[in-house]
C-alpha cells in the first residue's frame, strides 16, 4: 500500500518538475514516469509478496467490506473463527441453497466449482453395497484405537506400498487414519507449529488449506507467489522453483515469521501440474537445508488419466532427504470419489508426530463400520485395477477433453494438464480492469447465471482473472454449465465493446485495485495533463492523506533508490 502511494507521489512530482522546466518536452516526465512506474510496479509486487508474509487476521476479507461481527457471546478466538471468510464457502452455500437437478430444479446452480468426482458413482455404489461391506461386529460399534483399527492401518500400509510403488513394504505403525484431509492439515498444523508460525505454500493453492491451519491453531500460510508469465528457466506458467521458495522463506524471516513447514500438493490443486521426481527431490532438499517439515498431499495420486504424465509418489523414492520431516497425506475423497465418506490417512516415519496427531485423533474419529468398508475396498486389488481405475481414468479423460474443447472454442487459454478434476483457465480478457474486484464481479455474474466455478482469489492467486473449472461430472451438467458460462462471457464482451473500455495495463489495474476514492493521474490516462495548479492541489491532497513524507526523507530515498534519485535530481535541475 505504501509503495503504491510512493508511486503516485513520484508520478505527481515528475509531472510538476516537467511543468516547471520550460525546455522539457511535456512528455518527457510522463515517459520517464512510466519507466519509473514499471520499476516501481515490480517493487510493488515484491512488496505485495512481502506484505503477504505478514498475514491479515483474515486472509480473505469479505470483499463486500462489511464490518466484522463481534459477538459478546464468543471469545476473541471465537470471533476470529466466526469471521473467517472463504469465498469457496460462499459459493458452496449458494449452491446448496439452489442445487441444480434436471427434474426438480432445472434452473438451479450447476456446480463446476467443488472438486468432486461424480463420474463413478455407479461403480462405487455397486461395490460398497456388496454383502462383504455390511459387517457390524462388536468392535465396530465400540470405541476404537484412535489411530484407526489395526486392520485398516495394515490395509493402508499395503495399499500405499503397492500404489505408491514403495521400494520396501511400508509399516502400519507409521499410519494414522482420521476423518479426512482437512482434519489432517488441521492436526498437523497443531503439532508442527505454534500460534503465529508459518507454513510455506506456492500460490495458487487449494484455498481451504488456509482455514484448515488457521481455525484451531492460528497458523498462517506464507505464500510463494507464482505468476503465469514465464521468466528465466521456467518451463511452464506458475512454475515453482527452489529459488522462489528460498526467496519467500527469506522474505518471511525478514518479517519475523517463523516458518516451520512446506506444503506440496502433487498432483497440484488447482493447476493439475505433476511434479517430476527431480523437482520433488529438489524441494525436499530445500526443506532439509532449512529443517522444515514437508507435508506432501498426494490426494489426487490415482487420478492421473494420461499414461504419458508420469506420476511418482514421494513414497516411491529410494531415499528421502529427511524422512523424519516428510509426512505424506492421502484420502479417499478424490481418488475414490468418496468425499462424503470422510477418511484420510497420514504416513510418516516420525513417531513423535504420529503420537502427537494420535492425541488429537479422538476428535477426528472414523466410524467403525466405515473403517470396515474402506478396508474391504482397499483390499480388493482386482476391483480397483480392473474395474475402477481404468474406467475412472477413461471417463476423466473424456470429460477433460469435452471441457477443454469448449474452452478452445471460446478462445479461452488454459493450462493443459492430465491429472485431477479441473482446468485452470485464463479469463483475464473478460475483466474490464485487471483487478480482483472485477474478478469477483465476474464470479458473481456466473453464480447469478446459475453456474459455479471458483475464482483465482479463492486460491490466493496473485494475478486476477484465473478460474478453476471442474470437469469430473456428467456430460449433461458440463454442457449446461459451459453454456451458462458462455452466456455470461458473451454479455461481458458486448458490454466491453459498447463502453469502449481499454484494458488498462497491469500496473494501472494494480493501482486502481487498491485505491477506491482517490483521483489518480496516470501516464496512460486519456485525460489532458493538468496544469501546475491542479498538480499542486493534487499533491497537497496526497500529502494530507498519508504520513509518507514524515517517514521518508530525501536522504533515506537517496540511499534506498540511488538510480531513481539520480534521475529525479537531473529533472529538478540539480
Amino acid at each position, binding site marked *: 500500500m505504501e509503495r503504491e502511494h510512493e508511486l503516485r507521489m513520484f508520478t505527481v512530482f515528475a509531472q510538476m518538475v516537467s511543468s516547471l522546466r520550460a525546455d522539457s518536452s511535456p512528455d518527457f516526465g510522463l515517459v520517464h514516469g512510466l519507466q519509473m512506474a514499471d520499476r516501481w510496479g515490480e517493487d510493488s509486487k515484491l512488496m505485495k509478496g512481502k506484505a503477504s508474509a505478514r498475514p491479515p487476521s483474515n486472509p480473505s476479507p469479505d470483499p463486500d467490506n462489511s464490518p466484522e*461481527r463481534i*459477538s459478546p*457471546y*464468543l*471469545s*476473541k*478466538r*471465537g*470471533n476470529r*473463527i*466466526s469471521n*473467517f471468510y472463504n469465498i469457496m464457502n460462499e459459493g*458452496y452455500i449458494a449452491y*446448496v441453497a439452489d442445487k441444480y437437478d434436471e427434474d426438480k430444479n432445472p434452473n438451479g446452480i450447476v456446480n463446476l466449482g*467443488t472438486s*468432486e468426482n*461424480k463420474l463413478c*458413482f455407479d461403480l*462405487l*455404489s455397486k461395490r*460398497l*453395497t456388496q454383502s462383504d*461391506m*455390511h459387517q*457390524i461386529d*462388536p*468392535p*465396530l*460399534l*465400540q*470405541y*476404537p484405537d484412535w489411530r484407526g483399527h489395526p486392520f485398516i492401518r495394515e490395509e493402508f500400509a499395503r495399499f500405499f506400498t503397492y500404489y505408491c510403488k514403495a521400494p520396501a513394504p511400508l509399516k502400519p505403525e507409521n499410519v494414522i487414519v482420521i*476423518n*479426512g484431509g*482437512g*482434519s489432517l492439515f*488441521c492436526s498437523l498444523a*497443531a503439532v508442527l507449529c505454534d500460534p503465529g508460525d508459518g507454513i510455506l505454500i506456492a500460490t495458487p493453492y487449494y484455498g481451504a488449506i488456509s*482455514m*484448515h491451519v488457521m*481455525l*484451531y*491453531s492460528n497458523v498462517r500460510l506464507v505464500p510463494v507467489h507464482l505468476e503465469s508469465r514465464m521468466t528465466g528457466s521456467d518451463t511452464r506458467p506458475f512454475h515453482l522453483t527452489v529459488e522462489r521458495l528460498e526467496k519467500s522463506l527469506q522474505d518471511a524471516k525478514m518479517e519475523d515469521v517463523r516458518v516451520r513447514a512446506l506444503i506440496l500438493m502433487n498432483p497440484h490443486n488447482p493447476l493439475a501440474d505433476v511434479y517430476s521426481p527431480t523437482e520433488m527431490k529438489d524441494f525436499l532438499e530445500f526443506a532439509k537445508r532449512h529443517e522444515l517439515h514437508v507435508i506432501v498431499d498426494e490426494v489426487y495420486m490415482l487420478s492421473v488419466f494420461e499414461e504419458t504424465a508420469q506420476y511418482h509418489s514421494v513414497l516411491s523414492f529410494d531415499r528421502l532427504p529427511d524422512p523424519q520431516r516428510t509426512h505424506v497425506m492421502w484420502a479417499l475423497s478424490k481418488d475414490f*470419489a*468418496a*468425499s*462424503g*465418506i*470422510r477418511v484420510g490417512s497420514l504416513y510418516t516415519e516420525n513417531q513423535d508426530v504420529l503420537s502427537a496427531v494420535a*492425541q*488429537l485423533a*479422538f*476428535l*477426528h*474419529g*472414523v*466410524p*467403525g*463400520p*466405515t473403517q470396515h468398508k474402506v478396508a474391504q475396498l482397499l483390499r480388493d486389488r482386482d476391483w480397483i485395477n480392473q474395474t475402477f481405475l481404468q474406467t475412472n481414468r477413461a471417463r476423466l479423460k473424456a470429460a477433460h477433453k469435452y471441457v477443454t474443447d469448449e474452452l478452445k472454442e471460446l478462445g479461452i487459454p488454459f493450462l493443459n494438464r492430465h491429472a485431477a478434476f479441473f482446468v485452470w483457465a485464463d479469463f483475464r480478457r473478460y475483466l474490464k480492469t485487471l483487478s480482483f474486484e472485477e474478478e469477483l464481479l465476474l464470479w458473481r455474474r456466473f453464480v447469478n447465471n446459475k453456474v459455479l466455478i471458483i475464482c483465482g482469489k479463492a486460491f490466493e492467486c496473485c494475478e486476477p482473472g484465473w478460474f478453476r473449472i471442474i470437469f469430473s461430472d456428467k456430460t449433461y451438467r458440463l454442457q449446461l454449465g459451459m453454456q451458462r458460462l458462455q452466456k455470461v462471457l458473451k454479455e461481458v464482451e458486448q458490454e466491453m465493446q459498447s463502453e469502449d473500455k481499454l484494458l488498462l495495463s497491469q500496473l494501472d489495474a494494480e493501482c486502481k485495485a487498491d485505491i477506491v476514492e482517490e483521483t489518480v493521474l496516470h501516464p496512460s490516462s486519456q485525460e489532458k495533463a493538468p496544469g501546475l495548479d491542479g498538480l499542486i492541489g493534487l499533491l497537497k491532497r496526497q500529502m494530507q492523506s498519508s504520513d509518507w513524507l514524515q517517514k521518508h526523507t530525501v536522504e533515506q530515498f537517496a540511499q534506498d533508490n540511488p538510480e531513481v534519485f539520480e534521475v529525479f535530481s537531473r529533472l529538478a535541475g540539480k
Partner: protein
Amino acid sequence: MGLSENKICYDVIAERVSKIIMGNMEPEALHYADHQGIKSFREEIANFLTEQTASTNPVNADHVIVMNGCCSVFATLATALFDPGDGYLIPTPSYCGVYPQMCKYADLRPVHVPLQSKAFSGEIHAFQLTIQKLEDALQIARVQNIRVRALVLLNPNNPLGTIYSQELLLGCLQFAHRLKLHVIIDEMYMLSIHDDTPFTSVLSLKEVPDPQRLHYIWGFSKDFAMGGFRCGVLFTMNKEVKTAVTQLAVFHQCPVLVQHILTQLLFDKDWINCVYLVKNKKRLGESYRLMFNGLAALGVPVLKSSAGLFVWADFRKFLSSPTFEAEEELWQSLVKAKVFISPGKSYGCCEPGWFRIVCSFPKEVISIGLQRLHQGLQAHSQECGFPALQSKLNRRKWSITI
C-alpha cells in the same frame, strides 16, 4: 471395567442396524455435505430430542449441529467460547475425558468444584452439588486470575451416576446467568436410567434464565451403545455460537452414510420406545444390582445411583494410607489381578479411595470381574499387611448367583 461402554445391548442394536437397508445408496452418501449435518438427520434428531427430553418448546433442526462424537462438540464449543488460558467450572469428580476435549485444541483450565463423600448439613446425599460450592470455586478462580467463562454439567453424572433435581438445575442456571457464564450441559446418559427416578432434562425447564448461553450436548455413544459410530449433537439457540462452531465442524463431520443409518434408526420410534429402551433399562438395572450386591459382599460400599453404565465405589478402607499414592497402589494390584477399574484421581476426586466400575456387561463378565476384584483385594491386603481385613475376606464364602 474402565471404559464406559454399553456392551449389554449389542445384540439388540446390531440386529436393528443390520436391517436398515444398505441396498440403496444415494450419490449424496459419497459427496461433500452440509458441515452441520444433513437436514433430514437434524430434523429427526430435533424430533427425537423434543420427545425424549419432554422439551418445553419443540427443538428446531436449525439449532442443531451434528458432529463425529460429543468430544468434538466439547472441543468446538471450547474453542469458540473461550480464549486460551480461560477456565471452566466443573463439579468433580467428573468424567475425565472432558479435560482433553476442552483442552487439547482449546487450551483451557478446569476449575474444579470439589464434592465430598460426607454430606454436609442441608445436603441429602454424598457428593451433592450446591450453589455455594459453585460460588466458592469461582472465588478461588478469581484469586488465581483465571477468567471463568462457563459452567460444565453432566446430567446424569459421570462417574457418580446421580441425577440433578429440577431445583438444582435451575439453581445452576440462575447462578450462571447472574455471572454471565455459559452453561454447557451434557445429557449423554439421559436414556440410561436403570430405575424409576424421574429425570428432568434442562430442555424441559419452563423458564431458562439465559437461553442464549445454554448449550446442550447429546450423543449416540452411551444411550444407543454406539460409541464406534461417532455421532454427537449440539443444540444451541445462539446463532453466533452456532456460526463459529459450524466453521470448526468441518473437521468433525459425521459421514453421510452414518447419518443416513441413524436417521432411519431414530425414525423407528416404536422400536426405540417399545423394544430398545425397555430392554436397555431392564438389563442395565440387572447389571447395576448384580454389581452393587457383589461389591457389598466384598465389603465395598457403593454410592446409590440411578443412571449411567457404572457404579461409584468406595475402596477407602483398602488403602494403606488415605493418599492418592495408596490409591494408585491399589489400582496396580487390581490390574495385576487382570481387572481394570478407574481410580478417582483421574476424575479429579478430592478424596483418595473412590473408583468407578463399569457394569454394563453381560452377567458372566460381571461375575468374572467381581472374582478378580476379590483376588486383587486379597493380594493387596496381604501386601499391605491388613490381617484383620484379610481374614474378613477369607471368611466370606465367595458366591454369586448367575
